[in-house]
């Protein structure tokens, strides 16, 4: 099957100019692919670069070497050479990312935060809000919280808002960084169901799951990210 997203020889290091220009290599020669309807879990010890890989795929970090390709609007696009406007368009239509923490926007209520990416993709505002509301309810966020800005929410509540926002648009490719980290058992089940539903709809999912039980239930296979050995 043709992949939704694939990398070729992807590499990433960080040069810290304020620390004497020290270079920290994090990823080298990463080659992997994910197909529509497939969930690939990134595995490997903490600090190995799983989140860095995820951020490179989202364009949040600039890849330093290699290539990232994805299917966008029916054609293969290369991400590392995409300019800012192209990247925004890819994120709007194709590529979703649920980070570990919700970036709170002052004064915007939870419902509008979830509906925003749907509206950006052209959904009618009422339909977007209806979908947002049903997702928030599915994730057990009570109605009385929907119109409040999530700044005062608990970590778990914020994460559920973040998850609703990520799942709402039905992106063809979805990146999930620890989606169940601060959730209770009931909400973990909801997330597992959402992932299964998205896979059935053809979404390609790349995830980091520290919860092995969740991982084993949603992932079709593992991709191991190993720490780079210090060149001594």
């Amino acid at each position, binding site marked *: 099957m043709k992949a939704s997203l694939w990398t070729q020889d992807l590499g990433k290091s960080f040069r810290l100019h304020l620390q004497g220009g020290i270079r920290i290599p994090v990823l080298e020669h990463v080659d992997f692919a994910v197909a529509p309807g497939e969930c690939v879990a990134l595995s490997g010890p903490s600090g190995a670069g799983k989140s860095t890989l995820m951020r490179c795929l989202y364009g*949040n970090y600039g890849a330093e070497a290699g290539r990232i390709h994805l299917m966008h609007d029916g054609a293969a696009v290369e991400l590392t050479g995409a300019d*800012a406007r*192209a990247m925004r368009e890819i994120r709007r239509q194709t590529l979703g990312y649920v980070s570990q923490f919700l970036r709170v926007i*002052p004064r915007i209520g939870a419902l509008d935060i979830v509906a925003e990416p749907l509206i950006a993709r052209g959904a009618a505002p009422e339909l977007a809000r209806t979908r947002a509301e049903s997702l928030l309810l599915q994730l057990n966020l009570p109605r009385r919280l929907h119109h409040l800005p999530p700044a005062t929410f608990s970590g778990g509540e914020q994460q559920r808002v973040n998850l609703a926002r990520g799942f709402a648009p039905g992106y063809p490719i979805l990146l999930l960084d620890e989606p169940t980290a601060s959730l209770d058992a009931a909400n973990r089940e909801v997330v597992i169901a959402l992932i299964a539903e998205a896979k059935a709809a053809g979404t390609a999912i790349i995830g980091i799951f520290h919860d092995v039980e969740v991982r084993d239930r949603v992932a079709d296979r593992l991709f191991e990210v190993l720490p780079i050995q210090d060149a001594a």
Partner: protein
Amino acid sequence: MSAPLLEAEGLRLRFGAVVALDSVAIDVHPGEVVAIVGESGSGKSTLLRVLAGQMRPDAGQVTYRAPDGTPHPVHDMGEAALRRLMRTDWGFVHQHARDGLRMGVSAGGNVGERLMAVGARHYGNIRGEAAEWLRRVEIDPARIDHLPRTFSGGMQQRLQIARTLVTRPRLVFMDEPTGGLDVSVQARLLDLIRALVADLGIAVLLVTHDIAAARLLAHRIMVMRHGQVVEHGLTDRVLDDPQHPYTQLLVSSVLAA
């Protein structure tokens, strides 16, 4: 993909021995918010004035594309045409509200005046729209006949936003719009600008030294230092994975609340 609204290349400007702009290129597309960040003296405000046609560069060209697609070299347009542009397709939000408002004219008059400048004549409609815009920028419409000098700094700034956006310009220049305001007032203003700009699909060139404001508002970011653009790109990429030593310093200097 759309053609840029505003495009500049090879901009150079010196003030005596000081290089204010050194080979600066920039483009802004319809509906795009671009932040120009850097510290005082980096040349960011000078760049804004050059782009808005208020200052002539020593070299380089700024081109504005009219709604019909015709490119206009901004510095060859003549003062009258530029003034007309500033009343219609463009807007300018100054750091100090009193530079953008007429302090001797009522709040409603400040907003209505811009509408009249683009041809509105019906008094009732103008007043109605002015009241609606006061509401949109969270000023009690009951204060429509009050003078701006009776307003707080934050209200004056919101009034300036209303006055600028009422004619739905295609491109708005903003020079440190939150500078000089209390932090709590800044957050409200930023959020208001964010919502209005997204609603109206306006392109914005925002000069700020406030990295958090740039992150909240801008799609793209340009980092300036000593008159040069040292780094530019997608906002979250530049701020989360800065490459240039100066950008790394700038980002690491932000205090997390």
